[in-house]
């Protein structure tokens, strides 16, 4: 990913208050071109509200958000030309087939003539909906609807995509296909902000994540950066040829080692340190004469980071 100077999405001290609820509380972060940023948080954390503000469907109480340098409050029409928003619901029209649905939105985004026909063709190709062109949208499966929704989102070739729970309710195959589509879009240089409850998927497709809870942004960065920042421990296992007791004593005396368990010649423990620290630890073991025959470290997943960062509070 090449990081450009100007962020494609920028939330700047964003606030949104509904009566007594501070749904979004001073949230700031950026998304650059070609980057996929996962927006994660428990239900009611403020993800959808922030995304709706970005999509110019809601207004912030204070602060502002920018898409390609345009304020969502002051220049919503310019933002709309550059942004594709996929909400967490699918709006259906009665008596409309797949082609007509895409054709309507292409027309609504001002595409005319060959440009419109070509855009619909490309979108149907990308989302693999060509075979279903004449099918009424009410008869589509959930996965097909999600594809169509993604197709609608990108019909005007926006530079920014905001996807709210795009994988919700999809079967594993449809999820994998959707993930591939999102990766392709990012490769095409689009800035993508995506929210999901399926953290394993986000971890695979996102360059960075933003964690929000109770309207407050708790952390932004890659999973590794956040893990380092919040000192999330990795789980390390060491097996020695002999001298299990010596290994246990040696590890117990080291800083950063906790939750030490042993099983014969195998020791498993939590270690607070990055990969370089793990390498140093291994070197120190060997230098101290421990006959290490197996050394491995399992780093914390996005789920572990999420659980560590958030407290599961709702407002």
């Amino acid at each position, binding site marked *: 990913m090449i990081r450009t100077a100007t962020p494609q999405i920028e939330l700047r001290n964003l606030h949104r208050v509904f009566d007594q609820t501070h749904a979004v509380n001073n949230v700031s972060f950026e998304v650059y071109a070609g980057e996929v940023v996962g927006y994660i948080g428990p239900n009611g954390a403020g993800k959808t509200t922030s995304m709706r503000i970005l*999509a*110019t*469907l809601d*207004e912030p109480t204070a602060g502002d958000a920018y898409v*390609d*340098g*345009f*304020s969502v*409050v*002051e*220049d*919503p*029409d*310019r933002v*709309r*030309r550059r*942004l594709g*928003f996929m*909400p967490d*619901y*699918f*709006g*259906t*029209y*009665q*008596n*409309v087939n797949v*082609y*007509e649905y895409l*054709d*309507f*939105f292409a*027309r*609504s*985004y*001002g595409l*005319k*003539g060959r440009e*419109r*026909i*070509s855009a*619909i*063709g490309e979108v*149907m190709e990308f989302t693999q909906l*060509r075979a279903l*062109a004449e099918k009424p949208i009410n008869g589509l499966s959930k996965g097909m609807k999600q594809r169509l929704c993604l197709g*609608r989102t990108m019909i*005007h070739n926006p530079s920014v995509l905001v996807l709210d729970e795009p994988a919700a309710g999809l079967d594993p195959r449809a999820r994998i296909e959707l993930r591939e589509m999102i990766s392709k879009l990012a490769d095409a240089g689009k800035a993508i902000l995506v929210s999901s409850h399926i953290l394993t998927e986000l971890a695979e497709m996102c360059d960075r994540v933003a964690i929000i809870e109770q309207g407050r942004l708790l952390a932004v960065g890659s999973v590794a950066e956040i893990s380092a920042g919040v000192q999330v421990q990795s789980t390390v296992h060491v097996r020695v040829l002999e001298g299990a007791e010596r290994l246990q004593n040696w590890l117990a005396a080291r800083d950063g080692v906790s939750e030490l368990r042993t099983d014969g010649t195998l020791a498993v423990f939590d270690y607070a340190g990055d990969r370089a620290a793990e390498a140093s630890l291994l070197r120190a073991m060997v230098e101290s004469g421990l006959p290490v025959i197996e050394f491995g470290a399992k780093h914390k997943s996005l789920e572990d980071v999420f659980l560590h960062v958030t407290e599961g509070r709702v407002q």
Partner: protein
Amino acid sequence: MNGDAASTTEVLSVADDASFDADVVLEPIGPAAKSRAAVVWERIEPILVYAGDWLNPILVKETRQALKSFQFTTTFALVLAACWIVTIGGLALIGPSIFYSASGGTLLAWYYAILAFPLIVVVPYSAFRSLTAEREDNTYDLLSITSLRPRQIISGKLGSSIVQMAVYFSAVTPCLAFTYLLRGVDLPTIAVLTVYTFFGSLGLSMAGILLATLSEQRFAQVFVSVALVAGLLWICFWSVFGGYQVIQFSYAFMGGEEFWTTTLALTTAYVTTFTLMFFAAAGTITFSTENRSTPLRLCMLVQQAAWIGWMAFAWIYNGYELGFIFALAAFAAVYWYVMGALLTSERVGMSQRVKRRLPQSFFGRAFLSWLNPGPASGYMFTIANGTSIVLISLLGIAMSQLLASGTPGSLSADELFCLLIVGWGYVVAYLGVGMMAIRLLRRFAVVNTFAAVLIHFLVILAGSGIPTTIQMMSVDLRYEDYSLLQIPNPFWSLTHLVDGGVASEGAILVLVIPAAALCILLLNLRSVVRELQAVRIAPPKRVLQDEAELHPPPAALPQNPWDEPE
């Protein structure tokens, strides 16, 4: 995909039993073998596609939907069936006398009743439902983030209504033509009836769309939906009744000068009200930082000008009778109070976006600032219009005194003068008090436009109700007529002046009410000044960049034969 065109490669077919030698007959299949109709269609299709590109996307989508919808098909089939039943039943009843009796009028009344129901009830209700269903089906959000402007959304919905009307007309038109052949009804009557019904349906559809934009909440939609259906059925009943009257008595009024004058006056009222409703509907669904107020204020100005024009015409036509000046002022007072209540309920503060387009010149700031959005400028805009009405009316009174030759009307010049001044004072005072109340409440709570308008009506209700209640509760005042306790009560005070109270309390009211109005105006002046202090700001650099990309300056052309083109 629809866009896939059939291959136009020429294909050669070989004669059945021929071996491939020099005698083989090669018959071209493809373009050369195409039927004439196919060739013509191939030429027309790109033109239709090109024309379709310029149609409103909502119109295209909703026409496609309508042609497949059960509701549309059923209604159309019912209209067609009803026409057939009336035709067959009518002919059976008329019998052989069809050759000499003039029975077109009776059948036309029946056909009109059949046409009125879909046009007056179904089409406007469909327009209302079309927008409310967008909210229910979660498609409104998707629609509102496209490049479609709110005015395009509204005009698309209206266009869809027109298409529906056209289809219903197409079902009934042969029957209408048939009634002309039966004699007893002339073409102008049929034309007037259909044109009035068409525009009536269009106006009601506009009202339906406006109501749909106003009713965002589910309970409001249900309430408005029921009220709208009831209202439309009521209008349908009266339009059928009116249509029957027109058919029966058209000979008496059609074609005369008064008929055309009335038609022209109604057209003016229709066009200005329709435009106002259109901009109001578009404004309701426009993003809040956009300037939603100025188009509405311009519509109000045009409507006021039209009203003044027609009342001046009636005044001159009827020998400078003062009654028309009274009608002008009375309607204007109610109109500007209602519009003023809406304008002074606007959101305080101007967005950066609006500030980018504020007038800059001295004259622009002096005369166009009242068109800027904001409650205080709305207040001053209302007062300016109310004052202009008063001045025009005073001029009218003076001219009536000079020119009137006939018998005086029911109102004297003095009474009218008092009414004008006192009426003006009430409008200025009550709007000012309402605006202050809204400003005060907005410090503690969120007051939206609907609540703000409600506050205005509560203020005037309190100003009228409290003195009336006190007088009714008082043992001494209970059986007296108008007392000075009723000064805050505009309804009783103005009625008292009309009923000849000018001689007794006229002077007091003329002094007290305008004085109170001026005091309230002064109290509101600070907020007016604050709004007037807003100055134009430059658009952000990114916006200027985008504008330059969207609208690049035209390439410089050579100014003389020696210039090199750039």
